[in-house]
């Protein structure tokens, strides 16, 4: 088989290896299963009586982790990296987090980005208490986690977890935006396993 100087090998196609086209999800339940996040719908169907509870947990968790809105608050240089994470290059809009709310009433997440001084500590706590439940906190950098280089200072709180509960600690001084993204992904994993469904072993 020579045509114009080019040699063309005959190709044989193994028809058994071709997978049939995936069925397009039609009903709401099928669409939920198709997201991959709600993968226990079928398993839950078999456990009568727990269907509603575990499924709603998972739907709620999925909804919550998909649009975490952080409160606009920064304390020190870590806040500059937080702004860098929000900009186009690293783009936390991929996680539904692009809206930094100017009011704690509309936020789900607080980045404690920077050194928590003794004078700022009650203000940080007040900001946290203003946020509606459910709410999460990420301690960013060594200062917010432990006090960092200011551990022996008279004016710096030795870790923000002394005053508010913290979900994820991001190390670094300041952490790079990649570290921020890793911390955010860890928090998403944590939210995914919240609720009674996870406690009963249904969120597989």
């Amino acid at each position, binding site marked *: 088989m020579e045509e114009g100087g080019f040699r063309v090998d005959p190709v044989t196609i193994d028809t058994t290896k071709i997978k049939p086209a995936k069925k397009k999800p039609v009903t709401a339940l099928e669409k939920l299963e198709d997201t991959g996040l709600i993968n226990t719908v079928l398993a839950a169907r078999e456990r009568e009586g727990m269907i509603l509870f575990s499924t709603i947990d998972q739907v709620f968790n999925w909804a919550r982790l998909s649009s975490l809105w952080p409160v606009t608050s920064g304390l020190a240089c870590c806040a500059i990296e937080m702004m860098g994470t929000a900009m186009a290059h690293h783009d936390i809009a991929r996680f539904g987090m692009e809206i930094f709310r100017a009011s704690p009433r509309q936020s789900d997440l607080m980045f404690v980005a920077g050194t928590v001084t*003794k004078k700022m500590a009650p203000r940080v706590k*007040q900001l946290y208490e203003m946020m509606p439940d459910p709410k999460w906190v990420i301690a960013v950098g060594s200062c917010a986690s432990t006090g960092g280089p200011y551990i022996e200072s008279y004016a710096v709180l030795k870790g923000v977890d002394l005053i508010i*509960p913290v979900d994820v600690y991001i190390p670094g001084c300041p952490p790079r935006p990649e570290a921020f993204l890793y911390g955010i992904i860890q928090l998403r994993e944590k939210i995914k396993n919240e609720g009674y469904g996870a406690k009963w072993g249904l969120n597989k």
Partner: protein
Amino acid sequence: MSATDELKQKLPAAVVSTGMQGNKPMAVIKKEELLNVAGKVKEMGFDHLSVITGTDYKDHFEVVYNFYSYNKKQNLVLKVIADHDKPEVDSLTSLWKGADWLERETYDLVGIRFTGHPNLVRILLPDGWIGHPLQKDYDMNTEQFVTIGEKGEDIVSTDGSNLLRRK
């Protein structure tokens, strides 16, 4: 002629010693003559008082004034020795308006009292803070916490029961 030599020539009784502080001419002057010397320094063209600091040497305090002249492009450092038991020096707010906050900061952190200052209260730390942190005998073992009062004012406490999480 450097600024310290000029100062020594004009007020020989006020200048204790002269030297260099890094690359800046420095003069140690008598505490009683501070306002006199400062007036002369302003006449010499040092229109900018950039920094006031203080240092605790355990047996005495040293107050350091950094001046700059925008016309002559010259620096000048003045030092005053103050007692350790009762650190008091005259305020320079009558000559340089900018001395106001600088002296408040030095009072806040080092504990130097400036007589004649219009409003000598703490500037960085909240009112009610115990001690001056840059003094050598500051108690680092007692931790102090700040909470917000009903009117939004800062309240200093040593136990922090309103602030810390109960465990």
